[in-house]
């Protein structure tokens, strides 16, 4: 073995080179009150005691609330087979294999995931997946900057404000100009979302044409389930389509793990971030799978790599693939129809509020209530409902505005009960 960790001398040399006296000094940017003061941990507990403690903590969750919250992640049905298949030992890995040729099954599942995303979006290529929806938007923006050699990224009001924050955080030190609106002049890309954060459905075909006329790209953040009813990114002429893939068989969790989807057109593929599985033939002519176009990646291109992403969200990508296979085309379209029809039904029951969307919606809409939305949400929680997202804390609406999402899981009784509870909480 030739690998030897750094010696104290080497460490001192490196610190001197960057002009820092000690390793601790590297952490000076963290405010003192946020730094760990001591490792004063309690005594260890027995397995039995730990189980009891964790169960007690878990019971404080409101796990039985019926959720009308969305804003990027949704309470969709997940067939039991998704868990059963993804938990098999042969599949159970978070990562792309680092010796891909040894893991043909994993590579095949990634290849099939990519193929499913291509069919879903109408784009030419999808990568092996990214972390989640927000970072996928950032990766698309960075890709557009590489493709156009332009420094301006224009963010449309339709984009999820949380995704915008992620883009701003990632680009804070990249010297990019982040602008608002939809003017593609001099821009690397315009980033839009469909349906919008508030749920409004738009057709961005004309904007795609304007972008291309100005030498810019159109990046679209889409909601995979909605493609069962809506025009695909491919049909709109989008250059880079990204999404949060949670709706495709991944349970709701605070902090994930979720799934970042990224798909693009053939001419842009050399600048695409992330891993890419491909089909090939071995020396005997048998079908096999490899990772391809790896010269884009960090282990070969070093500091000039397209991204620091050098793995993927393999297990979540597998979940979404199994979900899509179980649903099939008809099932997938049916889920979308249910989502839309049930949301329309609920909308019709909420006449005490004002729907704020200025166009058609898919399964989510913004409602202006006669009273503070956070207060209303707290009230209906006692009756077993997670009412939705109050918009004011996200800077996306007034104090009275609530974002409500409906999935195929809601029954007519659910919807009637929720409409009644919301009416009482908002009006009495």
């Amino acid at each position, binding site marked *: 073995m030739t690998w030897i960790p750094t010696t104290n001398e080497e460490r001192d040399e490196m610190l001197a080179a960057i002009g820092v006296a000690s390793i601790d000094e590297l952490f000076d940017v963290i405010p003192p009150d946020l730094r760990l003061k001591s490792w004063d941990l309690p005594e260890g507990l027995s397995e039995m005691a730990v189980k009891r403690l964790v169960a007690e903590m878990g019971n404080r969750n409101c796990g039985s609330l019926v959720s009308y919250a969305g804003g990027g992640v949704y309470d969709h049905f997940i067939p039991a087979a998704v868990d059963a298949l993804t938990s098999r030992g042969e599949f159970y890995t978070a990562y792309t294999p680092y010796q891909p040729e040894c893991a043909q099954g994993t590579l095949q599942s990634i290849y099939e995931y990519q193929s499913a995303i291509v069919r879903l979006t109408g784009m030419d290529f999808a990568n092996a997946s990214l972390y989640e929806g927000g970072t996928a938007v950032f990766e698309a923006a960075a890709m557009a900057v590489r493709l156009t050699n332009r420094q301006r990224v224009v963010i449309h009001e339709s984009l999820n404000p949380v995704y915008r924050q992620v883009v701003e955080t990632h680009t804070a030190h990249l010297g990019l100009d982040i602008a608002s609106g939809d003017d593609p002049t001099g821009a690397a890309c315009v980033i839009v979302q469909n349906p919008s954060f508030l749920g409004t459905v738009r057709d961005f075909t004309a904007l795609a044409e304007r972008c291309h006329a100005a030498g810019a790209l159109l990046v679209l953040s889409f909601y995979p389930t909605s493609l069962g009813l809506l025009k695909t990114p491919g049909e709109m002429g989008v250059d880079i389509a990204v999404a949060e893939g949670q709706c495709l068989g991944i349970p709701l969790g605070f902090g994930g793990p979720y799934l970042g989807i990224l798909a693009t057109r053939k001419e842009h593929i*050399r600048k695409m971030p992330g891993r890419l599985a491909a089909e090939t033939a071995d020396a005997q002519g048998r079908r096999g799978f490899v990772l391809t176009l790896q*010269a884009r990646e960090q282990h070969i*291109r070093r500091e000039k790599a397209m991204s620091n992403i050098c793995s993927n969200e393999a297990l979540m990508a597998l979940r979404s693939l199994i979900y899509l296979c179980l649903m099939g085309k008809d099932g997938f379209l049916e889920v979308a129809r249910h989502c839309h029809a049930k949301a329309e039904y609920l909308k019709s029951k909420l006449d005490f509020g004002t729907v704020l969307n200025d166009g058609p919606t898919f399964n989510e809409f913004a409602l202006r209530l006669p009273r503070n939305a956070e207060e209303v949400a707290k009230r209906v929680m006692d009756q077993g409902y997670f009412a939705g997202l109050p918009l004011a804390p996200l800077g996306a609406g007034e104090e009275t505005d609530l974002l409500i999402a409906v999935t195929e899981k809601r029954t007519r009784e659910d919807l009637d009960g929720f409409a009644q509870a919301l009416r009482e909480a908002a009006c009495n």
Partner: protein
Amino acid sequence: MQTDYPKELRYTEEHEWVGPVGGGIYAVGITAHAAEQLGDVTYVELPEVGRALARGEAAAAVESVKAASDVYAPVAGKVAEINGALESAPEMVNRDPHGEGWFFRLSGVSAQEFESLMTAEQYAAFVQEHEG
């Protein structure tokens, strides 16, 4: 392996060649030695026409089955033309590195800068020395 390096070209330690094609224009490519070391070239990324390059600036990139490398401008100049044929036929870099496999052409090149580079003979010796 003994390679014949064309006498009318000049060479760099980064294994690029540059040579006049007439009208004050100079073509740039990678040497037969570089192409052989890279193995089968699968993709070539070329600079934008009109881009001004400083001497030693990363101007293009070449990917092979084995590696990806930058190609540097051997002399300063402005990109006058790129070899678009490499897009669909990158194997030309292996087949004819000093001819059809050229990467881009530069205008506004200083003859003095060109002359300052290694001659075919010097480059052959340089390669031999570094091959051991």
